[in-house]
Each structure stands twice: as C-alpha cells, then as structure tokens.
C-alpha cells in the first residue's frame, strides 16, 4: 500500500457571525395528514376528477389541474422494497442510535418509514411483509411512519 497522500490545506481562520434558521412550515393544506398520524391513520390524497393518487399527499392535482381532492387511507400492510441503516447520523439526529429507514409498497403507493422492531440489518429481507403504523418519536416530539417486519 502506498503512503496516504491527500490534499488538506489549513490556514488562518476567523469565525463567521452565526446564522440560525428555524422555519415555521405552513402545512395547513395537508393538516389532515399530520393530525391523522397522531390518531393512528396514514392518509394519501386522491383527485376526485381524474383519480390520481398522491403520497406524500398533495392538495393540487398536477395531472388534471384540479384542487378537488379527497383523503384516502394508506393500507396497514405492505411489502418492503429497499432499506438502509444510517450509522453516520446528521445534525438533529445525533441522539438517536443508528436507525433503519425503509421504503414499503402499500397498495398503489410507496411510503418511507423507520423499521421499529428489528435493529440488525442483516435480519431484514426485501420482499418481507410489514405492518405500517404511525409512531411517536419523543426526542423530536413528532409522529413518523413506523414499519414492523
């Protein structure tokens, strides 16, 4: 193996004036989804005019330009399509143990979520049936979608 040569040039530095963003996200048009999670429901939207199904839910149908949407529940069971386990956690998630994120096909939509009942990624198989339900994450005071393999 060769000597580890790499480009790393340091020098005199000064600190910037810190900048903090904390956004108030306007989710009024998808309010039912966010409140639904707390009630154990996961909602998608469907266009009443052309039938297009949206998950994540959206208030406008880009297909037929209608805003006439109805809320429909995402099935409680699905099939695991792919997954990963996040070891290098980003800012905001440092206090979590490494977590498994998966994509699950549920009826005609796919949803992202955390696998809640298995921690060993080698025990997870693509194609497995999973139960889908909202779960409360205390550290962030939020609900997310949880998967149970």
């Amino acid at each position: 193996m060769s000597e580890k040569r790499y480009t790393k040039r340091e020098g005199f530095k000064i600190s910037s004036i810190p900048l903090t963003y904390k956004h108030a996200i306007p989710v009024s048009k998808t309010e039912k989804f966010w409140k639904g999670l707390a009630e154990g429901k996961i909602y998608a939207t469907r266009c009443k005019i052309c039938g297009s199904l949206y998950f994540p839910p959206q208030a406008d149908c880009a297909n037929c330009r209608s805003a006439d949407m109805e809320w429909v529940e995402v099935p409680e069971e699905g099939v695991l399509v792919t997954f990963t386990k996040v070891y290098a956690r980003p800012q905001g998630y440092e206090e979590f143990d490494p977590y498994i994120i998966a994509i699950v096909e549920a009826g005609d939509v796919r949803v992202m979520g955390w696998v809640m009942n298995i921690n060993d990624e080698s025990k997870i198989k693509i194609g497995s049936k999973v139960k889908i339900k909202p779960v409360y994450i205390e550290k962030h005071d939020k609900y997310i979608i949880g998967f149970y393999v």
Partner: protein
Amino acid sequence: MRRVAVVGVGMSAFGVRNDVTIQELVWEAVREALDDSGLKQKDIELSVVGTVNTRGYELMPAVVVNEYSGLTGRGPVRVEAACATGSAALWTAYSAVASGQVDVAIAIGVEKMNEVDTATSLAVGGRAGNYLWEFHMYGTTFPAYYAFYATAHMQKFGTTEEQMAMVAVKNHKYASRNPKAHFQFEVTLEEVLKSRPIAWPLKLLDCSPISDGAAAAVLASEDVARKITDTPVWIEAIGYSSDTSNFTRRPHYLGLEATRKAAEMAYRRSGVEPRQVEVAEVHDCFTIAEIMAYEDLGWVEKGKGGIFIAEGQSELGGKVSVNLSGGLKAKGHPLGATGLAQIYELVKQLREERERGRQAPLRNYIALGHNVGGTGHYAYVTILRR
C-alpha cells in the same frame, strides 16, 4: 444551433481547502482556464457560475467570485442543480454560445464544503431530496439514499459488496496518479470492505469525500475556436433529464431513470453510440453509483454492472476507460465543481495531456461526461469529441 468548442479548461487542487475563500478558489480555476484558452477577461461575454453553496457563509456568491476574477459586467448567471450544478453551468454557457447570443462564455463551478463540521454537512446533504417528507421525518442522509439503491441492486442482481469495493480500488488507483486529487493514495479491497459503515451497505470507502474545489471551462463558437486554437474539443451534445424529489415516487431502485433519459438524448443528438465512447468520467459519488452508471449509460445490460467492474472492463484500456481522474470517489466531489471537473479531465484526455498511467488510449477521440444531481434528481450527459 452553432457548433460550440471547449477552448480552455482550468481546475483547482481538490481537497480540504481551508487555506482559501470561495473567490480565491475560483480564481485558481479561472486563471488556468483563461491561460489555457489564450483569451483575456475582456473576451468573455458571459460568465455562468454554478454553485450549490448551502454550506457557505457567502450566500449569494456569484458576483463575489465574478468580481474577484475580473469578470464584473460579464454575467454572472448563477445556476444550481445539486451535484449536477457544474453541468447545468456548462449547459447554460453552451446554450448561450450555440444560440448565437454570445461568441465566448465561461462556465465556472465551485463548492466550499469544509467550512462547517461533518454533522452539519450531512444534515445539508440529507435535505437534498424533499425535506418535509423525508429528512424532517426520517433523518435521511445522502449516503442513505444511495444505500437504498445498493440494497435493491444487490438483492435483485446479486451485485456484491466486493464488486462495489472494486470501484473504490480502481478509482483510488487513478487518483494516486492525479496531483490535483483529494485522495492521492491507493486502497485495497480489504480496506474498503473493513471500513466503518456509513449507511449500510455503504462503508466509508464506498463514499466520495467532502471536498472543496473549483473548475472552469471557456467555450467558444466555431469561428472563434478555429482562430484561437489547434485543439478545440467539440461539445457534440448535452443530454439532460430529472426525476422526482420524493424518493418514494421513483419507479424502481435499480438504476437512475434520469441518467437513462439524459444519455438517450445525448446519444441521439450526437449520433454517437455507447460502444464508441472510449473515455468517460461518470458520477461515482458512491461506488454503487458507478456500477449503475455502466448500465444506465448503455455499456452493459441492466444488472451486469458488478460483473463489468469485476472483469476490468472499466479500467484504463478496457471497453471504456472510466474515471481516470479518480472520479468523485477519490479525486473529490465539490458539488458545483464536479461537472466541470469532468469536462476538464475529458478535454485533457482528448488532447492526450494526462500523466503516465492514466491517459486513455484513443482511436475515435470520443468522450462522455455523466453528472448526477441529488440522488438521481438531475442528470446531464455530455458527449465530447476532438
């Protein structure tokens, strides 16, 4: 549409560049590109500045870098297309020349990524999908997105962690011969496989580094190019496409549809066939990305990318010589600079100016650059010919 040539290229050393500001870094690339073209700033009619710059303190840096480079008044237009920003800058400058609006333009790409810590950098990168529905709820990271592809590709096609590691070994080998690369050292298969997990199944040495860097290309119309250089490199076509921001809305996780469509456009517009490409820089932000690129760019059938690397088909002198710069994986991946650094490398390759041990053997003198933004959110495929 007029023919457009690349008449000058420049690139800074990639790596941790905490010795310079963004404008000083840009100047390293612009100075070299101007020197290479033989042109002066007054000859440049338009400057296009590509930078993502979500980690920088200079939030609107286009005029800052333009001023420092003596280009005030010549543009700038700032563009952003995540990790494909450099190609978006190239496309914008190319379009301005091809349409006849200007005769000479410069495309500049730059990224400073090491002025914030790694956790912050991961949090910014993880927002590259759709913040509200993904990062906000699940803490997705950039490696995690490509890990989704790796897991699915492995399961469906039997692609192995060893095959992915071979991409890292190959690209580090060429980077060790590239004095401008971030990582100028080789790695062994075992070292890659034993490196710490980042987002399973991707490990540290499957990932491109967090790099600073700048690159630039001077473009000219055919009339101007013929007058100023004996070695114009022609932009035969630039194909582009995109995919959904919501990862869950992608049709599958076995390849990048945006790449496939951008490649189809580039091949069709240039009349070049995949097998004619002799040297390529492909978007290997993670090792799985290079394996999928072999397939999506049409060099091998879908699912056989792992075998393509294992057989050495992408080595120097193979079916197509891929990432002789070291790729994003080892040369480094400063987002806004990457697309133009690919052009820098390919122009040097086509002019046969590369160092020993990493100059591709050429007969057709056809090169391909493949630059992906986000996790397949954008893709650009550029075909160059000398």
